[in-house]
């Protein structure tokens, strides 16, 4: 059903979703809506296509790889055993209970907030984004702040990552909850070394190669490689804090 502009459709399965998007190329995919709806303020409403009725997108499959449907809410993922290795901890920093009830894994990935905990943790896990066309490594999926390599009409179907991984997660919020991260780091042990995945300093989350020593020189590299992320606090401060949090996370591993 459509109004003067915009419209709303809620297909029941992926096939119907695909068909709808093919027929309505300008449609906006509505998952949790927590990021999409505020962004539409003051604009003519788009055609909405709600993925919330598609059961296949709400499944979490476990095995040697964990596969999380794009429609799984952060609250549901945090409750699942597969989230035990650091994912639940990271999710705890996303908004608050009410936001997490609706925000979805697919929605967070598509939104690609440079400070987002879901893109960061999926990158840290060496995860992939599975679409209806292909599978993309998360580091190839994120192209910049609020920018992905999704093609027009391409649908995120799931996020996948290797099971059993363990991450230590540290984040600085300005308050004690509910806000965007100032900086965040996920740390994973790789033999004697550590791999760091960070956000808040440059314009996207970035994952390091395994680093045996102090990761400080890597932060200098980051600042050369990527544009600094604009913030109320200076890059110098954020770099210093990120370094301290990275060392904390390292100690926990």
């Amino acid at each position: 059903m459509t109004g003067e502009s915009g419209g709303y459709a809620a297909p029941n399965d992926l096939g119907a979703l695909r068909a709808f998007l093919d027929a309505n190329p300008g449609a906006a995919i509505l998952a949790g809506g927590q990021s999409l709806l505020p962004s539409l303020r003051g604009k003519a409403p788009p055609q909405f296509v709600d993925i919330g009725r598609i059961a296949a997108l709400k499944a979490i499959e476990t095995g040697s790889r964990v596969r999380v449907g794009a429609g799984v809410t952060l609250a549901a993922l945090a409750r699942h055993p597969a989230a035990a290795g650091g994912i639940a901890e990271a999710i705890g920093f996303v908004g608050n209970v009410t936001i997490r009830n609706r925000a979805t894994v697919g929605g967070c990935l598509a939104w690609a907030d440079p400070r987002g905990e879901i893109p960061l943790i999926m990158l840290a896990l060496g995860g992939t984004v599975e679409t209806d066309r292909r599978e993309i490594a998360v580091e190839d999926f994120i192209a910049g702040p609020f920018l992905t390599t999704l093609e027009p009409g391409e649908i995120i179907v799931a996020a996948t990552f290797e099971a059993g991984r363990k991450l230590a997660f540290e984040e600085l919020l300005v308050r004690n909850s509910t806000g965007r991260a100032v900086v965040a780091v996920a740390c994973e042990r790789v033999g004697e070394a550590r791999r760091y995945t960070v956000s808040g300093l440059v314009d996207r989350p970035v994952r390091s190669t395994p680093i045996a020593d102090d990761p400080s020189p890597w932060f200098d590299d980051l600042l050369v490689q990527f544009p600094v992320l604009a913030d109320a606090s200076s890059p110098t401060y954020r770099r210093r804090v990120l370094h301290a949090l990275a060392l904390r996370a390292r100690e926990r591993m």
Partner: protein
Amino acid sequence: MNGVLISLRINGGAVAARVAPDLTLADFLRGEQRLKGTHIGCEEGVCGSCTVMADGETLRSCLTLATQMDGADITTVEGFDDPAGERLRKAFSEYFAAQCGFCTAGMMAVAREFLADTSVADHRDEAAIRSRLDAVVCRCTGYQAIVAAVRAAAGAE
């Protein structure tokens, strides 16, 4: 008019309506449903004064389309007249857990969800209560009276 037909439950009653595709749940509740107890403070999902319950979970009605709620079971502050809701109402009133009242509907929804959450070890734990109440901004009380009300409601169960 052109619109999407939705049918849902609001505060225990069946509702059918034809809504514009982009009508928010908040505007739907406050408009043709005439449920003014849910308030709009920011329209970006941050302040929490629009928080209601859908299928037992809190959500931001300003960030939800009415169309998404087809088939849902919605409870607003007006519908907190069951025993659990009455306990909360009584506690809020007794403990001065509101001043201007604008956040009250949202606070009560979050408190209600918290009190019903069986994964919480101790519903009277102050830190746990405050952490959950982070979901709604109160600019008047400084939160202490609201914490006291939630503890009292938890103790009364």
